[in-house]
């Protein structure tokens, strides 16, 4: 078994990468002086993976929306003690989350690390689904889905995604719908589990108060070698065009909430680190709190401090998003587009570029304080085939020409859509 040490002198940080014989990639990042440890066990499987087959199988399996998230909830259960009851005995705080393309199980603890890692590795490798337990969960997840229906920032985003994407499953709710989860049964859960919870499709990251040898010892003991298999995911072809330019809904809000998105179409399903950093710098320059646009929108009473932007991307989808609250979302969208046109015509200048780069570079260094962020980034970069320290090199080598070149390929008005939540009449 090979243990590779990856170091960055400038940051004074290091981590270990282990290709475990079981098929699992393991990352261990010891942080001197820390008292707690954070561990994340993840699979490259999320809400968008709804049609798939293991290479060699004859037929594709189509599963109900929300099943990855449902599976995440159910994996905590077992024939005797469920995972939460086991963690209760150690004092760790445990959780899990499902995103568009990942499902991760995690714990953080300041003591009894070995026991906690044993619980994590054991329960994620031990599915136990029955008809009764599946039915019980439908009620709980039904309430989770309803809870999000009352969260305007969530609704406005998914309305936007549905306005931008014709076929890509990023537009469906991560938890599915009350109807779709009613179709989930134990057999389907096992099918998804066998397909995606293969250690070759997974990664484990541990950061904080930890020693690489203790992780390897537990992994050797508890990991069950997975057979090599290749999963083929099927996504319907997504056209470059958006579905509709404008979409609105009414909810009990005080001020209208908006999301403006610019859909991107690329030849490859995933964005490189450099492309993501270019996108972040462009958004910072156009709409960050040092920008001309931000000041103008605040001064003209068009937005408040909730105004922000983000690069939203994953397997097969990418979009730049602007969001906030405004009494006049259409006017805000107009001003954003005007400013984008300005930069496209005049280019981004050296000074703005340096300022944004310095800011994001500093923020990246700050993130190395945070073991939760680090473990999460290790998993993400493994699924993206990148390394944790690659950011620094990208930041160093980036030029203003790279930024202007990237800008010319993105933020195309033709592929933009606006989603608004307006207050219901009585408010």
């Amino acid at each position, binding site marked *: 078994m090979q243990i590779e040490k990856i170091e960055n002198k400038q940051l004074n940080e290091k981590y270990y990468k282990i290709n475990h014989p079981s098929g699992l990639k393991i990352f261990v990042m010891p942080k*001197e002086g820390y008292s707690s440890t954070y561990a994340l066990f993840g699979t490259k499987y999320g809400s968008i993976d709804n049609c798939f087959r293991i290479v060699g199988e004859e037929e594709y399996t189509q599963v109900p929306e929300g099943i990855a998230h449902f599976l995440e909830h159910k994996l905590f259960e077992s024939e005797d003690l469920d995972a939460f009851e086991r*963690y209760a005995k*150690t004092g*760790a705080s445990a959780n899990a989350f499902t995103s568009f393309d990942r499902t991760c199980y995690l714990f953080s603890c300041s003591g009894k690390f070995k026991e906690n890692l044993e619980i994590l590795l054991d329960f994620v490798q031990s599915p136990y689904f029955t008809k009764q337990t599946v039915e019980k969960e*439908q009620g*709980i997840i039904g309430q989770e889905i309803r809870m999000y229906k009352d969260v305007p920032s969530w609704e406005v985003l998914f309305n936007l995604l549905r306005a931008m994407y014709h076929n890509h499953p990023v537009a469906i709710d991560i938890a599915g719908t009350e109807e779709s989860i009613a179709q989930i049964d134990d057999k389907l859960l096992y099918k998804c589990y066998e397909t995606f919870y293969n250690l070759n499709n997974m990664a484990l990251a541990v950061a904080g108060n930890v020693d690489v040898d203790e992780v390897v010892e537990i992994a050797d003991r508890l990991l069950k070698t997975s057979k090599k298999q290749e999963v083929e995911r099927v996504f319907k072809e997504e056209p470059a065009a958006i579905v509709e330019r404008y979409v609105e809904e009414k909810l009990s809000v005080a001020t209208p909430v908006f999301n403006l998105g610019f859909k991107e179409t690329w030849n490859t399903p995933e964005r490189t680190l450099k492309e993501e950093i270019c996108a972040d710098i462009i958004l910072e320059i156009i709409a960050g709190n040092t920008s001309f646009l931000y000041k103008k929108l605040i001064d003209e009473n068009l937005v408040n401090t909730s105004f922000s932007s983000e690069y939203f991307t994953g397997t097969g989808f990418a979009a730049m998003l602007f969001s906030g609250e405004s009494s006049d979302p259409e006017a805000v969208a107009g001003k954003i587009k005007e400013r984008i046109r300005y930069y496209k015509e005049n280019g981004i200048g050296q000074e703005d570029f340096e300022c944004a780069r310095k800011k994001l570079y500093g923020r990246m260094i700050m993130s190395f304080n945070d073991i939760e962020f680090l473990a999460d980034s290790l998993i993400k970069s493994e699924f993206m085939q990148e390394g944790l320290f690659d950011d620094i090199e990208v930041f160093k080598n980036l030029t203003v020409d790279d930024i202007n070149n990237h800008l010319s390929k993105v933020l195309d008005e033709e592929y933009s859509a606006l989603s608004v939540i307006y207050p219901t009449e009585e408010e």
Partner: protein
Amino acid sequence: MDNLKIFSPSNGVKLCLMPYDIFKTSVVSINMAMPLETRVEERAVLASLLRRCCAEYDDMTKINRKLAELYGAVLSSGVSKKGEAQFVTFSITCVDDKFSLSDEKISEEGMKLLLDLIFNPKLVNGTFTKEDVETQKRLLVEKIDSEFSEKRIYALGRAEEEMCKNELYATKRYGKRERILSLTAEDVTKAWKEMIEKSIIQINVIGSNAGDNICKEIEKRFENIDRNNLCEIKTEFVVSASEENYVSQKQSVKQGKLVIGLRAGMTDKDDNNYAIHVMTDIFGGGPYSKLFMNVREKMSLCYYCSARFVRSKGIIMIQSGIEQENEEKAIKAIRQQLEDMKNGNFTKDDLENSIKSIADSYLSLKDTPDGIDSWYSGQYCDCGDEKFVSPEEYVENIRKVTSQQVQAAAQCVSIDTIYMLKSNSEEGEE
């Protein structure tokens, strides 16, 4: 904590230096506390106004540019409520100088900027400008409005307001919307002077730059400020509910939001604090708690159902999101779990699990600068010159709590207010 050094740069000001070398940043936070009684709205405006500009950087964009040049230093300000005190907090986080690309003194400059914001604001003829104040009033009012849009937060706020309607605690952290709208630049200027003269102040410095020389820099800032008439902060504790209130309200929501407010039986923030903390955790803390195991897992009534102990006011707040047709069922189930606590129907394991969980998470706090900062912030305003309590000391006391103490604590708890936010259409659908 062994590496906590405390100085008194001025009357009613404590400077806490916490030299840590495990982080890549340094954090300076300034916490100013005053009673939640007068000029609450002015100080809420001040929190964002002072963050927006100062004498040297006289508009928002200039300050933000400066921060970007300081390698993305994070400057934030906020308003919070702890017991019946309003806290106005300013903080800055800077990366350590060793990461600068051309030998800049990032932390020193960051600290100076933070102090300038508070002590050297942008004044024209001795007052804030009307224009700046008006902008901040609008932004603050919109912040209040956006809390209306987040129904879980809104419901919790409404329940506290109903429960404490005859106490100062009913005041929201930003105060009243209408009063904010009526403020003038002179009102805000007056409140600024009052705040730097009379508030109880704690300054935390966390990181590798927490050297003793900082004390001088801070002393200088207070040199010409008259701090002889400090405010007094105290919180009214209502030991038990006189009767149970039920309040419901209708809005167009898809899911009902249930909040139950309890009186914890305390006469002050130290009264039986540890036992009540453990009791609340067994009852409605983590996924091992009675509320989670029964109301969610056994009965499938909700996705979340938990209880939170608000030590600074001696209350416990239970929150859950449910179908409104299940309201009675859920309330009954929650009452049953509380009765079980009072009757001692919990196991030795339940007690041990809670203690372990509290201990584990408190002992992790010092792995983030924010964790350390929020743990110590406000302790001075709370305890005056008494000793600061470290997470380790707190945990020691938590570990001493017995089953009998937990049961006794539960017996002192009483339901004060049940609040339910309902849908205004029949089935919860529009």
